[in-house]
């Protein structure tokens, strides 16, 4: 076991290398620059290729090219750059090409700010680009998860032939903590018979997303949908912390969930039984797992660093028979454990 004291962004980049990353393309944007900086230094050492593209539009399309040749590919950016990539992400999804896309999200809309934010939840989880598709989305809340979920994202991307997104945030990306660098034994990138290699007299291969004849696009769309249904069965990740006896369950992801852990301890020291439900895969969302909590708890407290995006999903899943309160903080300052505890008391009249 290799125990390190690592920054979140470095953990993610190490995981990419350990997963066999062959091609990275990216463009400078704050606050994700640590990832390309790390990879420009380390990727060539293991025979991979690092390209600083002229824009995010170019980065994502470079991935489209490299992925079509069967290699593991990744790009990273931050919110405005991810917006520019949406065209390419839609094409990757339509062409069924695996790729890992990392969004160390910042605060928008527009140029916004470089502060902490979760304003990209809708964009990340509801497609983002045009067309009828979903891509898997993972939200790490620790440096270890920056590593583990990146490994996971590469595997899921290959397994379902889909782009996969890591929705990270500034806090998790910049903070340092202990990391165990563990690439699980036995995970191997699958053979990609669909990818371009040497042709060797084989049948012509075509990778595309344009389907004009008859109902072939409808068939294609249902095929993509079926993959999504499979992901719902197999790829859901979530975390529960002290939910069993909780009077109020906080629902949060990423950095907010991390802060909420401390809030829960603080609340319990003060006699208030809080718990935490944390979706780790935002797509597919752990709907059943969240809903099952309504058997023992009727109070849910959704906290996000936006004005209420995941809130829509939680309201849809939990329905109207439970008490849902929301606290949103669309600003660059991550709320402290005290802030969340005080909000819980205020919103639930304790």
């Amino acid at each position, binding site marked *: 076991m290799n125990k390190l*004291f690592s920054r979140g962004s470095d953990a993610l980049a190490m995981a990419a290398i350990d997963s066999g990353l062959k091609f990275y393309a990216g463009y400078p944007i*704050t*606050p994700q620059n640590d990832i390309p900086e790390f990879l420009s230094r380390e990727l060539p050492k293991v025979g991979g290729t690092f390209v600083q593209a002229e824009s995010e539009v170019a980065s994502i399309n470079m991935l489209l090219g490299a992925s079509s040749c069967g290699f593991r590919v990744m790009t990273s950016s931050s919110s405005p750059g991810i917006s520019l990539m949406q065209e390419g992400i839609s094409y990757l999804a339509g062409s069924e090409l695996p790729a890992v896309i990392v969004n160390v999200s910042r605060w928008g809309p527009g140029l916004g700010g*470089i502060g902490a934010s979760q304003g990209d939840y809708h964009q990340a989880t509801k497609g983002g680009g045009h067309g009828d598709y979903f891509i898997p989305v993972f939200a790490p809340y620790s440096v270890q998860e920056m590593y583990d979920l990146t490994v996971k994202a590469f595997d899921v991307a290959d397994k379902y032939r889909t782009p996969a997104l890591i929705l990270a945030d*500034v*806090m998790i990306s*910049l*903070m*340092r*903590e*202990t990391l165990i660098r563990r690439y699980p034994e036995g995970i191997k990138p699958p053979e990609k018979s669909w990818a371009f290699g040497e042709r060797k007299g084989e049948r012509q291969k075509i990778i595309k997303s344009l389907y004009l004849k008859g109902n072939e696009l409808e068939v294609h769309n249902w095929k993509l949908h079926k993959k999504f249904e499979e992901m719902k069965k197999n790829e859901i990740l979530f975390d529960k912390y002290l939910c069993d006896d909780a009077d109020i369950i906080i629902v949060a992801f990423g950095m907010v969930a*991390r*802060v*909420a*852990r*401390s*809030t*829960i*301890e603080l609340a*319990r*020291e003060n006699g208030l039984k809080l718990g935490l439900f944390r979706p780790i895969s935002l797509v597919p969302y752990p709907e059943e797992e969240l809903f099952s909590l309504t058997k023992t708890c009727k109070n849910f407290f959704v906290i996000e660093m936006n004005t209420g995006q995941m809130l829509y999903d939680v309201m849809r899943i939990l329905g109207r028979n439970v008490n849902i309160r929301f606290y949103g903080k669309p600003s660059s300052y*991550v709320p*402290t*454990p*005290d*802030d969340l505890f005080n909000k819980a008391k205020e919103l639930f009249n304790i």
Partner: protein
Amino acid sequence: MSSKKSFYIDLVFSGFGGQGILIAGNLLCYSALLDGREVTFFPSYGVEMRGGAANCYVVISDRQIGSPIPSHPEIGMIMSLPALKRFENVIRSGGYLVINSDIISPEEVEREDVNKIFINANSISKDVVGNDRLANMVMLGYIAKRFSVVKKDSLISAIKEVVSEKHKKMIPLNEKAILAGYNLKLT
């Protein structure tokens, strides 16, 4: 939840860029890791590249750490006037402000419900290593001892983790400055 009595300490380090604020925070983290503890380090960041404010939070515990940003850290290592203004009211009641008195005069501090410790760190640094640039290490050495944050050996062995290859020859000087702070007796 019953493990409340276990080890937990949170700190904020703040000053100007160039004073080695982040290096001090990082050094404490590496030392605590050598002691076998859980550690989180969270730096500030912004658009000003040089000068400007620099600060970081460090949390050290025996257990898994929740928020890397504490609501009200117990200890503040304060190296500039803007740093004092920013964090004076963040420190928890009964906590400690460890202040570089070569840069900040004691009357600038307004809080009454915290303990104030003044260290003329630049002067001490100049005395022991010949220049005043290792004031951060003097302050850190003092904090490590005064609050029993990390073991002395860990602190010394961790220096090589945060001093870049280019500045290897600075290691002995850093060690000297840390020990000066570590052995500092304040009246």
